[in-house]
């Protein structure tokens, strides 16, 4: 059965790697190793993929997330045909173009321009196909005159620019991109994501491995969470990222304790974010409701206790802070909720932290929770953190 161009199928894929200090053996080890007396200390092979099955249709955009060592890169390398499987099968229909290791496939003594030809050739393109794209690739890379300089003088960022430009301008049916975009600056990353969107519009299938959930949210419609070599979740992006956050332990569940409860007399015991329907969530949408539910416990007699709530961008910038009075119940607990009717945040990751303490003093933050605001894939939508909700209108020339 042949696959349609852009179709990707992993069928019970299994692969493990043996760990040896030196990757290549020696003849002596081969000849003598078997007869060596005593139990040879052979470390057990580390499984990278365990019975992974995936079926991806042409034109799908799939983000692969997982912790370090979960098997994300192995999945891409297996699909690219670079590493063979021990059992099962991995097949891609059509032409595969991959961007896995940044500096891989570059000849250091040759110029950027010559390396474009070599890389294209590696993916099986002929001279005419590559030269037709040469001008586009060079323009996108923004390397300017450096394109004719040997790549051994390039910085990591320049390698990324060139490597990405090549991968993103060849006519791929399946595009495999590993965690490499993080090297680029923010403006370049945005251009990369836009370029990827264009390629998808042209019918390419995308598999993107990234720890930058914002990037995945922006370009991927489907998320596969890989954990310990197995598929832990496979479904729409919003749910997938929530599942991944749950795996990382940054989902709600009372929030993460950011400092040991101090003798402030009041302790925050629970912190939970809820969506408009009152369900716990960690992914929200701009313009939709967000509720912050806080539970505290009185440890000592505190005069007029207060709770403090701080919203920070993922970069740490404080965006908003507010205080509320607490009215303790008879059993020494208190609950309070902060309701936001329409969230004025743009797509990205945010931290929400709360603390409690007596009025008049500084209130230290005790618990924090990270949440995401879904990004709008439409590139014409505003970018940034805060949605100012303004409108553009045409005006007469001023004076």
């Amino acid at each position: 059965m042949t696959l349609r161009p852009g179709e990707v199928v992993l069928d019970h894929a299994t692969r493990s790697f043996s760990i040896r200090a030196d990757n290549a053996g020696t003849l002596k080890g081969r000849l003598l190793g078997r007869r060596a007396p005593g139990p040879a200390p052979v470390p057990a092979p580390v499984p990278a993929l365990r019975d992974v099955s995936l079926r991806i249709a042409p034109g799908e955009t799939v983000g692969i997330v997982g912790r370090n060592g979960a098997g994300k890169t192995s999945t891409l390398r297996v699909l690219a045909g670079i590493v063979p499987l021990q059992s099962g099968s991995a097949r891609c229909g059509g032409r595969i173009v991959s961007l896995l290791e940044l500096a891989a496939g570059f000849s250091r003594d040759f110029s950027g321009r010559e390396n474009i030809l070599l890389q294209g050739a590696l993916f099986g393109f002929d001279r005419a196909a590559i030269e037709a794209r040469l001008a586009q690739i060079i323009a996108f890379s923004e390397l300017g005159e450096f394109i004719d300089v040997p790549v051994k003088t390039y910085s990591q960022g320049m390698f990324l620019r060139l490597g990405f430009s090549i991968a993103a301008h060849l006519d791929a049916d399946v595009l495999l991109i590993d965690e490499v975009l993080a090297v680029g600056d923010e403006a370049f990353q945005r251009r990369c994501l836009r370029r990827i969107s264009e390629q998808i519009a042209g019918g390419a299938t995308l598999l993107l491995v990234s720890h930058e959930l914002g990037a995945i949210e922006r370009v991927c419609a489907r998320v596969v969470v890989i954990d310990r070599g197995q598929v832990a979740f496979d479904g729409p992006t919003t749910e997938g990222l929530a599942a991944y956050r749950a795996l990382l332990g940054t989902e709600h569940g009372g929030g993460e304790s950011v400092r040991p409860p101090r003798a402030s007399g009041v302790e925050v015991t629970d912190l939970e974010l809820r969506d408009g329907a009152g369900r716990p969530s960690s992914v929200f949408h701009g313009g939709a409701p967000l509720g912050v539910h806080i539970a505290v416990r009185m440890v000592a007699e505190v005069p007029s206790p207060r709770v403090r709530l701080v919203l920070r961008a993922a970069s740490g910038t404080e965006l908003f802070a507010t205080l509320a009075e607490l009215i303790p119940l008879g059993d020494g607990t208190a609950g309070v909720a902060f309701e936001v009717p329409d969230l004025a945040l743009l797509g990205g990751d945010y931290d929400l932290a709360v603390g409690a303490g007596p009025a008049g003093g500084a209130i230290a933050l005790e618990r924090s929770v990270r949440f995401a605001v879904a990004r709008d894939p439409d590139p014409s939508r505003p970018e940034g953190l805060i949605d100012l909700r303004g409108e553009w209108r045409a005006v007469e020339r001023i004076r």
Partner: protein
Amino acid sequence: MAGYRFLFSQLVRRELRQKYKGSALGLLWYVVNPLVLMGAYTLMFGFVLKLPRAHDYPLFLMVGLVIWTFFQQSLLAAADSLIIQGALIRKARFPRETIPAATVTVQLVTLVGVLSLVSAVTIPLLGTLTAWLLLVPVLLALLFAFVLGCALIVSVLHAYFRDVAPVLAAALLPWFFLSPIFYETRTLGYVQRHPLVGTLLNWVNPLAPFIEGVRAIIYGGGGPGWGRVIYAVCAAAVSLVLGRALFRRMERELAVVL
């Protein structure tokens, strides 16, 4: 393989450029080297040790030396080739044979260049312009196929077992002396007393028929001997089939071991 012809030509071109870039004499080095060896051997075997010497000994030496150099350089370069190009192997899925094949092809370019120069001197000097010369390209093609098969074996073995290149380098030295480069096997006194040794030297060493065959044409002005041509065809076929089979078996894990 067909879709990767451009990759092959890219690899050959960049290796050729890398080889000759930054050296003032460039291709000339590949003539200078055998010339120096030729001078040394002429002195040693022609005057000091007094081997039964062929006429126009320097010309006799050159043909054999050029072919040997191609064989030796190809194998030594092929042994490292997959390791040197490891970055490409980890980058994409392409027929990995392209890499050792490009390495041997680069050496073939040198061989053809230098052998043309040697022929340009030898043929007018010795008056060996015969129709047999048409067979030289055929023998060179068979030699290329034979060496390519060996290169496939050496390259993939060395990627897994890094002792292969040193073992090979050690084996090449006695091999060099056992090859009919600075003597013609049948003219050696010892061989004349022990014909069996002569047969062994001529037919066990797969390189001997290639050397003697090409030399018989360019230097001797005669035919290569049909036995040698048939032997060359068989050696090329066996080497290619074995090399390809072993390479196919072992190449799968290359991205992991490199």
